[in-house]
């Protein structure tokens, strides 16, 4: 039986929060299912997949139930708000990972159980409440959207369900995951942020996501790279989109609205905007040309891990307004906010700087200096940022002053002038709509509205847009990373629009109803009664809708094609002639093919090292002689020799010694490589003696060297040198 929702803002809020939880649950489930299905025929244990799903549900679903459990009627403290509790769930899960890594005591099952229970409970309530048709349409849409996100995140060379198999075949994977994983592994093994190419010198980088992911990897019992391909999509993608929607829900609750606004699940306007802003209504190539890099958002793990925290902090800030207890406000201003800035800094510097900008702006606009707590908070925030910045900032990423750099070099030639308009389109739309909503028609009205602080939301958004725009246009930030400043406003704007669009629609309808009816000259019905404006709208909008659909299937199709292509190659390597479905999913055939791949032995050996007890790994370093060509030339063909050293620490979780790129290879100044001296000449036989290696290892504080060198055709030869034995 379904019960119609009683129309009231409060009931809508309850339903909206349930809807968000249902959406994130479905997305997590679908992503986990895609991963598992993609691996049929390969080693495919269900436990990590279920643990990832459980972790995702714990973070996304449990906070809502916890909020309802601990909140009394009328209690609106920020601490018991859903965003704050979601941050808490993140923290709890991370420390559960720390606990698991340090002691082996793993509470993953408990967290998963809580996550599953919350999800099922919320889902059941949600299903009972709404109309079946609306619920079904929503569920179908969520599944489709999750498939798209899966396509994007796994449709690149960064992450893929068949990551190890792809690596084993031709090493055709991007080097970025190796960089992130090597840093995460060095944190896990040695407790030092480093990329571990020649010992573990300290690295400056926003390694927060690496740290977080390795804790989560501990929790679900997997390694860093496997987590990047499985846990990251299943946990972080639903969390990110959930955070966007949650910020929208908080705004909707804070700013109020009409009871005529339909509930979130059936408000098609919300979902049209959501899909348009995420998937895009113009071709992917055009979006790329305008530096609206949808794929980057989902592929960049630091950005996608940082954004939910950023959005949840903003949402918690909105919840703070309802706080009545002084202690709660003090906790937010003196504790939560500075810590949130630090967390954002470690996750993505851009987010810390933008958040600080928002804090300072609000401090000025809301006259924080009148309250000593707020003043102290501002000082703490500035101090926290100032202290965090040097730790997380990689100087090499800043290539100096370069006016309009991002527009000039990262926007398609000829389209630069459209960048401020289209890259920031959602922000402009929100601001324009808010001005319309507030009936601000001219500069005088605007001044009045600003003085009355009626447009604080629009001001914050405008500030984010401005602050996000400036860095990339002032300085050259390596690899187009300025987008991580300029893109932030998009998601905040999307959340704000979702929070407000229902109200705008009602207002629009009311305005139209108040206007005198247009005279209709033709009284006929049927086709003749069709309005020309409708026909025009269809003609104009149809290409965008078709493009949205095309964009949404483009990435998943790539994933499917790549998966099939890989299977075909493995089947061919196994010597099986058939390329039918049965062969493509046959475990024996695929396993045989995999064993015959070029890098299978190397990858297996490195993964074997990772399987060593942590104590052994902590005292050891890995040495791969330059003579082992299979390793050192794996990325020569496409000019990526400088990144080859990252593979060993990323896979084995043991640092290299004398592991800088081969002589003759131009060493990049990015990826913290400047911490190591490039080779001045070829590696000599004298450099590879046990004595020389041990001398080097001891100097860097290690007691053992694991040497991985050319072995037989199937695998490299591994041997260990104990550097504290006599004669070493």
């Amino acid at each position, binding site marked *: 039986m379904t019960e119609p929702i009683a129309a009231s803002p409060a009931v809508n809020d309850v339903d909206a929060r349930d809807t968000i939880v249902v959406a994130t649950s479905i997305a997590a489930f679908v992503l986990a299912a895609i991963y598992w299905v993609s691996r049929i025929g390969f080693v495919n244990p269900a436990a990590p997949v279920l643990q990832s799903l459980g972790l995702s549900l714990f973070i996304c679903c449990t906070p809502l139930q916890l909020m309802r459990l601990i909140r009394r009627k009328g209690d609106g403290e920020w601490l018991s708000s859903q965003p704050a509790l979601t941050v808490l769930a993140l923290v709890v899960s991370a420390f559960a990972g720390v606990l698991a890594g340090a002691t082996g005591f793993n509470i993953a099952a408990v967290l998963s159980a809580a996550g599953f229970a919350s999800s099922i409970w919320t889902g059941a309530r949600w299903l009972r409440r709404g109309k079946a048709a609306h619920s079904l349409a929503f569920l179908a849409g969520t599944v489709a959207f999750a498939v798209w996100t899966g396509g994007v995140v796994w449709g690149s060379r960064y992450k893929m369900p068949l990551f190890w198999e792809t690596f084993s075949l031709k090493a055709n994977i991007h080097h970025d995951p190796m960089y992130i994983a090597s840093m995460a592994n060095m944190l896990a093994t040695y407790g030092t942020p480093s990329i571990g190419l020649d010992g573990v010198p300290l690295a400056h980088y926003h390694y927060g996501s690496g740290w977080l992911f390795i804790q989560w990897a501990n929790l679900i019992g997997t390694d860093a790279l496997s987590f990047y391909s499985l846990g990251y999509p299943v946990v972080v993608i639903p969390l990110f989109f959930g955070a966007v929607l949650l910020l929208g829900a908080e705004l909707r609750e804070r700013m109020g609205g009409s009871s005529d606004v339909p509930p979130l699940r059936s408000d098609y306007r919300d979902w049209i905007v959501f899909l348009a802003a995420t998937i895009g209504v113009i*071709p*992917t*190539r*055009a979006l790329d040309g305008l530096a609206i890099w949808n794929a980057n958002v989902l592929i960049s793990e630091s950005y996608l891990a940082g954004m939910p925290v950023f959005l949840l902090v903003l949402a918690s800030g909105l919840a703070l307004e309802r706080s009545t207890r002084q202690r709660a406000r003090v906790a937010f201003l003196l504790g939560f906010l500075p810590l949130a800035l630090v967390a954002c800094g470690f996750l993505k510097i851009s987010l810390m700087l933008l958040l600080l900008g928002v804090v300072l702006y609000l401090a000025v606009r809301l006259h924080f200096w009148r309250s000593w707590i707020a003043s102290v908070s501002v000082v703490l925030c500035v101090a926290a940022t100032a202290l965090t910045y040097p730790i997380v900032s990689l100087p090499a990423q800043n290539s100096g002053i370069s006016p309009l750099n991002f527009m000039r070099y990262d926007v*398609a*030639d*000829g*389209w630069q*002038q*459209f960048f*401020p*308009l289209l890259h920031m389109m959602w922000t402009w739309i929100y601001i*324009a709509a808010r*001005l319309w909503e507030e009936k*601000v*028609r*001219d*500069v*005088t*009205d*605007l001044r009045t509205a600003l003085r009355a602080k009626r447009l604080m939301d629009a001001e914050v958004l405008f500030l984010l847009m401005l602050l996000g725009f400036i860095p990339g246009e002032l300085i050259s930030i390596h690899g187009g990373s300025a987008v991580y400043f300029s893109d932030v406003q998009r998601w905040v704007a999307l959340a704000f629009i979702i929070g407000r669009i229902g109200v705008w629609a009602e207002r629009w309808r009311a305005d139209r109803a108040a206007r005198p009816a*247009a005279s*209709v*000259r*033709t*009284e*006929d019905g049927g*086709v*003749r*009664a*069709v*309005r*020309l*404006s409708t*026909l*025009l709208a269809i*003609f*104009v909008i*149809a*290409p*965008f809708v*078709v*493009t949205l659909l*095309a964009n949404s299937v483009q990435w998943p199709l790539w994933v499917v094609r790549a998966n099939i292509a890989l299977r075909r190659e493995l089947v061919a390597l196994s010597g099986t002639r058939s390329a039918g479905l049965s062969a493509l999913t046959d475990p024996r055939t695929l396993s045989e093919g995999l064993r015959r791949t070029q890098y299978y032995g190397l990858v297996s050996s490195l993964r074997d090292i990772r399987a060593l007890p942590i104590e052994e790994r902590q005292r050891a370093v890995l040495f791969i002689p330059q003579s082992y060509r299979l390793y050192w030339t794996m990325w020569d063909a496409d000019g990526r020799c400088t990144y080859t050293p990252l593979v060993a620490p990323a896979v084995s979780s043991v640092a290299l010694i004398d592991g800088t790129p081969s002589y003759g290879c131009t060493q990049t100044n990015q990826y913290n490589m400047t911490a190591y001296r490039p080779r001045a000449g070829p590696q000599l036989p004298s450099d590879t003696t046990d004595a020389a290696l041990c001398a080097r290892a001891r100097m860097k504080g290690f007691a053992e060297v694991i040497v991985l060198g050319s072995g037989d055709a199937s695998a490299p030869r591994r041997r260990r040198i104990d550097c504290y034995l006599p004669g070493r």
Partner: protein
Amino acid sequence: MQSPIVDNGRDRDPEAGLDQAFATVAVAASIVALGLAAIYWLARAGFDTPFDPVLRSVGLALFLLDVPYAVWHVFAQRSRGWAAASYSFICLATLASIAALGRLVPFAGVDLSVLVTALGLAAFLFATFHWLRSVSLRHALAIPAGSALFSVWTGGVVWGRIYKSPIFLEMLITDGIVHHDGVTLAALGNMLRTYHVPSMGLDGIPYMAYHWGSPWLFAQIANAAGLSLTEVYHLAFPVMMIPFFFGGLIAFAIQMRGSDVTRDPVFWILFLAATVGVMPITGTDAVGVWTSNVVISESYTVGMAVGLLLLATTVSFWRNRAKSLLGGSIRWWDFAFMLLVLPAGLVALGYLKISLMVLGFLAAAYGALRAGAFRRPPLVIIGIMTAALVVSVYGRVSLPAHREGMVALDFMKSFVAPPWWPFFFLFQFFWSLLYVVLRLRSEDARNVGDVVAAAKAGRILDVELVTLLAIVGVIPGLILHIDGGSAFYFSDVQRWVSVGLLLAGAHTLVPRFRGWRWSELRTIGVALLAVPLVISMMRNATHWTARMLRANAATRVQLYDAAGVKRGPPVIRILPRLMNHDILEAGLRLSPNYKPVEGLLEISRMPLAEKRRTAVFVPQSEVRYWQMLRRPGACTFSSYVVPSLTGMSMVDGMPPVGCKLSRYYGLSLYRPRVQPQLPGDTTSAALCGRAVKEGFERVLMLRFDSAGTVSRKPIDCSRIR
């Protein structure tokens, strides 16, 4: 046709305004022509650039652009209502008179170019004088300045792509990397000029079914101005025809409106948006809207101008005579117009560009049907005769090789990337859609029923015709394979008709933001939205010009290199250091094609009577000739060099064995070589046997020594026989 043609009282003084409007057309178009000539001349700085051809081209351009105004002002403006006295008809008549003049020159043997230039200059001064008397100072400054800037854009487009260049011959001499259109069309024009046969002249002069109207016209212009066909294509065409097209478009708008629409800034904003574009070029290219094609395809440029002027003339005729025609009081001159002007115009369009004839005929047929012409037997007979004529002409102008069968969505598959397919119709029809929407808005049509009612009342025939042109124009490219993207010349026609009509209605159709103040947020918002569009327009305006300058610099740097003078990479800023005549001349002389081109140009100076009885033969052994063109795959066009430079046909001039032949450019009319040329094929007897069969009396055998110097061996076939 109704609004925007119908004056709704918003124009101040339509009668007095027309004179000023047409004067604006004449002056603005003339300044564009002068600007283009100046650019041509400047682009050749440092090379041998006789002033004479430039002056003759300018003279003809001024004649074409200003004489219509002078005639209209003096004779016709008081005869409004008579189609033959309409400005558009006078423009067409002026163009026809230039062609006739050119056709007469070889017979008369008199150089009339000086007279034409003097007349053109006088007409220009006359138009300028009248224009200056009637315009405000602001207009008097803005129109010439704007026209001069516009000429920079048009010059960039026409010479910034590889099709045409002010230094075409120098490029041919330097490295032989020129677009084949430059030689194939000149060859066709030359055959028409020398033998009066549309042919490519590769092995005799068999008739080639092709829309050879523009090459024929250019051959007559070459006669009238005493220029070579190469000079006509690279100099006279841009200087004369590009202003003629844009002037024709504006004149069309003025005539449709019946008043001076050029005083409205919105008119010029629309004009620039439709021509230069407000979307980046990569964006319009991505959806198959090629903004530069109207200027680089000479047949389309001329055809479209003629088409618009013919449409304006027809509308003028129809407006004044429709009641008489449909009411039964037909006069003899009505018959004369309908029997001569319309069919002749459609035939001319067919020879200029087939697509224009087909669309023009369909539009005329639709208009006639909607007007009820089928109720009048004389009109039905004229219609049937016109249809028969069109069918007959189609066979004469359609190259069989271009009929390549049906391929679904061929144009989109070939020229639009699949992600942009959904946007294809929206962008292709943008201007038509805009016009239709604004017109229906002006009719206060709100639903389909209102549109049907308006159509039944005959109030929106213009909307119907634009819609028809849009739909019918896009169909060929969606169902047929037409080589080289030529389906564009069907689908693009609606754009210019709609733009013309929009310009006509700029004052009445386009919504105004009256009462908007800068302090209002909506004004600021609109301005912010307009900023990127304006920047795009400015970038588009300089894009092609910069490309032209870079290409110019590249050739000069090559010549400097050849002369042993190093100047660095070919960037625009070093152009002033690349103008030394002696170095350029030395570079040219040391370039591989210098002597062959010089020798062939020497032959072109033979008397016409000699040329007409002589065919040229270049043995296959003369690799210096057969490898003159160097673009990849250019061997298939190597045969055209002789006809294009000498103005004479070849015998046995098909490209060498092993060269992959194009199916187009008339090559399919000749038999490809199946084996290498044998010694027996090059004997005087064999050559004469072939030449006589093709109607020639002499063969001129050309040999090229290792330096490329041409030696001629005349063979008199009458003696061989």
